[in-house]
């Protein structure tokens, strides 16, 4: 539990001990991560991730607000919008974390999704389906695209993505209980229907997460929190290179006689800079390679001898300190992020004082290559 929450609960305890008994011990610290799959530039599909702690209360509902600058298309039902990975802690499987994989599909509404939308309290403009499977079991979670209300539009949001989840921690055989008693811990999905802005800028995504009251199967509206994810576009790495002709001499024997021979090589120095929307990146790890071998990080030097040229490539992992869990060991394909914590979260007036508990910056990989010609004589 965050320090601020503890204080709040403590202050209220004298007045409402019993009323808060269910939530006083609860914790809820979700994260939202937004990035892209199209490299670090502008445009391209959007990749969205959510993370909930293993010991957090189960999530009842998530509403993600898409900021102005992004566009949400209306794909035909049946369109595969992108890949999905997710993890869920399955109470019925001894608490094992199930890695789920699948795809996000645009689907036509059907009686099941319509009933789910009604239970979720939304009137969707589009219905998408997080179609997941693990070990031969499939799981379909509807994701509703919902038009923003006037106050939401006024605050600069163009659409909302809403997901409602069944309660996992109610007794087995309770109608509507989550399959396997599975509590969602993380999800990452790509949607080709949500396109990144084409103009440079700073974009703040926000979201509202509502947990369940533990073991009750009732959404705990008072426990809702706002979490955000920032995008500073575009993210770029630049590579500055200088080269210098170096001549050394070595002595060789020609027909038994010692002869001094000039050897020409090229000393290469390089320096990189990583920016997000023109400002230095808050967090980046740079690797520079030449002819496939690592020659340095943010800056460095090396010598070229006996070659005509070399391709120097700088790869910057930007805001990539953490990753959205997939249930399997971290891989380069994961969705990475830099956690800004509560201090990065700017409360949205829309949520009327609900705690703004976390913000992230979505990770990107930026790359630039330069061909360096060598001095040969």
């Amino acid at each position: 539990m965050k320090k601020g929450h503890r204080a709040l609960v403590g202050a209220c305890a004298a007045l409402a001990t019993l009323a808060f008994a269910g939530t006083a011990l609860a914790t809820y610290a979700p994260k939202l991560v937004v990035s892209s799959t199209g490299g670090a530039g502008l445009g391209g599909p959007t990749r969205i991730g959510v993370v909930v702690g293993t010991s957090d209360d189960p999530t009842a509902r998530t509403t993600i607000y898409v900021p102005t600058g992004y566009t949400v298309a209306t794909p035909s039902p049946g369109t595969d919008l992108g890949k999905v990975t997710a993890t869920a802690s399955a109470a019925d499987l001894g608490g094992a974390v199930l890695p789920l994989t699948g795809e996000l599909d645009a689907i036509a509404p059907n009686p099941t999704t319509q009933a789910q939308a009604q239970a979720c309290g939304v009137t969707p403009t589009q219905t998408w389906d997080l179609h997941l499977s693990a070990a031969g079991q499939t799981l379909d979670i509807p994701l509703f695209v919902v038009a923003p209300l006037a106050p939401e539009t006024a605050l600069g949001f163009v659409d909302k993505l809403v997901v409602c989840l069944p309660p996992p921690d109610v007794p087995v055989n309770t109608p509507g209980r989550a399959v396997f008693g599975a509590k969602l811990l993380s999800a990452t999905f790509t949607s080709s229907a949500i396109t990144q802005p084409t103009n440079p800028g700073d974009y703040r995504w926000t979201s509202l997460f509502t947990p369940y009251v533990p073991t009750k199967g009732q959404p705990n509206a008072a426990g809702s929190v706002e979490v955000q994810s920032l995008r500073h576009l575009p993210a770029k790495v630049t590579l500055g290179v200088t080269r210098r002709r170096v001549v050394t001499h070595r002595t060789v024997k020609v027909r038994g006689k010692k002869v001094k021979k000039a050897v020409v090589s090229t000393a290469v120095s390089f320096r990189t800079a990583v920016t997000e929307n023109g400002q230095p990146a808050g967090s980046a790890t740079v690797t520079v390679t030449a002819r496939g071998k690592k020659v340095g990080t943010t800056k460095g030097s090396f010598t070229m001898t006996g070659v005509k040229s070399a391709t120097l490539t700088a790869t910057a992992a930007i805001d990539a300190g953490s990753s959205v869990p997939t249930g399997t060991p971290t891989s380069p394909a994961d969705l990475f992020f830099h956690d800004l914590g509560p201090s990065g979260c700017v409360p949205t007036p829309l949520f009327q004082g609900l705690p703004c508990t976390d913000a992230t910056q979505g990770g990107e990989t930026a790359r630039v290559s330069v061909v360096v010609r060598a001095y040969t004589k």
Partner: protein
Amino acid sequence: MKRLAAIALALFALHAAPALAISKQSGTQTMADGTSIAYDLYEPDGAAPPGGWPGVLLLHGLGGSKDDLAALGAALASKGYAALAYSARGEGTSTGNLGLAGPDEISDERAMEQWLAGLPEVSDTQIGAWGVSYGGGQIWNGLVAGIPYKAVCVVATWTDLYTALWPQDIARSGIVAGFAKAVVARSPLIAANATAAIQSTAPATIKALVAPRSSYTKLSSVTAPVYLFQGRVDWAFDVTQAENGFLRVRGPKHLYIGQFGHPPSTFTTPDMAYVQSQSVAWFDHYLKGAPNGIDKTKPVTIAAATGSKRTSFAALPKTKVVPVGFRGTTLRRTGASFLQPAETFGVSLLKVQVRKVSHYPRLVATVLAGGKPVTHGAIVPKVGLDTIRLANYVQYIPKKTRLQVVFGPSSAAPDIAYLGFGDSGSISLGPADLQLQVLTKPVSG
């Protein structure tokens, strides 16, 4: 699991043209403790031969029932056997609680064997048994408990449940969870131990629980002819489980390592027809006394990874060790390219230097080739040089393939044998060396 087993057994019917008209009779038998065991008895029509029909008990997989064995029962009856399929206690319409192939199940198995042998049209002595997975384990346990089977066929099963599902004290949690989920509603024993079993939090308790449910230490007492069928790649029961049975029993024995099995394999592979024909031939020889020559064939056969090629050996095939180094400190590493094709067979060892470990209850290693899991293993990591014994799967590795090893708290996608539990510890690793056990000559490719 249950559905797959049913499909697999249905294949028997497809490949078994009825030679004799048959009848099916269903009923229940009441055990000594009052448990009602539901059965289906499949018998050939007409008069039994002198001495009666040879009999075969059929035992289903976990979470299944006698109904899964209908096609096999009918096929065997059409070949002149009295085939008795029954639902284990706590399964199907049988009453009682599932005790995980424990003393109660063995008592039931003995009672059903005696009941079958006591039928007037059935032989008093020529009784065999065929079981898959859970059923196979019960047959092994019945054999070492002295049930006088004259021949058995055991398919995709265990001889040592602990080393199969909790090797090096770490559960193959994805597999254990799947098994537990299948039967927990009717097994107080499983319900009481499932979480500890899945999370590997009480290895001594689990070891004590499953030891009496494993035949391994008593296999040298087995003299009945045993045909072992095991999957090349079976994340529940690897080849070692069958190898141990094959090496330790003292009677006639055959081992077929085929394409079927628990996940990631299935029980719908084409070579299930071969399993059927070999099973029938085994029973024909050892229950009916048919001189069909199966006792003279090479006892070990390995199917190729795909297709119908099979290679037979006079004993377990020879292997060699191929060393593969994984330098670096990262959790995901790639080794050198294979100059020649290879096919794994045996227990490979992965030695890894653990430099620091903090709140990291399990270190899982997944070996992949071309993104496909080859094998895996796990340990409770300790600082120093740790050795991970990797599961014994028969996997073909084509020439020029690079092996990759991935370390973590769970197995690497798409492998789900070792699921994690959301632990948040840390580990620091040094170099790792894989000693890969491979056949001296691949049987696939």
